[in-house]
């Protein structure tokens, strides 16, 4: 069975995926995880989880191209420029209008 190993570099930091190991059961997985990811004192903690226990999500739907959901989908600079053009005050700061 494949187990995925995540390691935490320092307390408080996010766990990062470090690799995977093949082991017969959790007992072997722990032994091997300690051996391969803990022998040199490089992590303060490990998470070891069977790959089949992971819930994988890879399909995301965006049929209507709702770019405003995305961080990059609402270009403020662009919209500001369009508004200034409509108002005819592209460069006038304290002008009328």
């Amino acid at each position, binding site marked *: 069975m494949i187990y995925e190993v995540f390691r935490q570099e320092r307390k408080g930091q996010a766990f990062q995926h470090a690799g995977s*190991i093949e082991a017969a059961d959790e007992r072997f997985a722990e032994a091997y995880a300690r051996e*391969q990811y803990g022998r040199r004192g490089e992590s303060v903690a490990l998470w070891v989880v069977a790959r089949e226990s992971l819930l994988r999500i890879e399909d995301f739907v965006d049929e209507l191209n709702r770019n405003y959901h995305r961080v990059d989908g609402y270009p403020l600079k662009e919209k500001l420029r369009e508004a200034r053009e409509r108002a005819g005050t592209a460069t006038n700061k304290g002008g009328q209008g």
Partner: protein
Amino acid sequence: MVSPVLRRVSVPARAELLLEIADDELILGWRDSEWTGIAPFLEEDVAFSSIAQNEIGHARALYELAARDLGTTADELAFDRKPEEYRCCELVELRLPEWERTIARHVLYEQADAERLERLKGSDDAEVAGLAAKIDREEAYHRLHAEMWHERLRNEPRYVEALEELRPLVDRRDGHTPELAPLWEEMTSVRRSQPAGTVW
């Protein structure tokens, strides 16, 4: 060059005891390291090599303590004695290319060693007790590993047979098997190739 130290003086009791354990660990470490690259699967290759490395580290620490008692060096004790002068048990000398027999030896040795270390930790000699405690903390991982494999293989006929076959050899120390001499040849070949008068 064979150190004449051990023939010149009667070996103090403490050094005798330390040599027994050191020799066990050195020879077993050597045998365990023979699995590097050819263990049943990759994870076990790493784990078993790591155990072998620990064992040789233990041997070194024990030799260094004994060396002070004997007025020699750890390297001389480890490599310059003749095979018949080693105090290791017969169990560790055997080359066991079948995984189930290697694991059986591992299990038997770790059990016996745990008992031995427990006795030493209670020693009046502070240095011996201290070193035994340090070694014991590393051995905890070896024991975990051995128990884990024992659980997995306990119903396998070949493994059960191997345990029975090897058990009597755990405490046999009054001689050596024919396997020790060739092991010693290989283990000391680099050392013996050092040109006379040079310092490495």
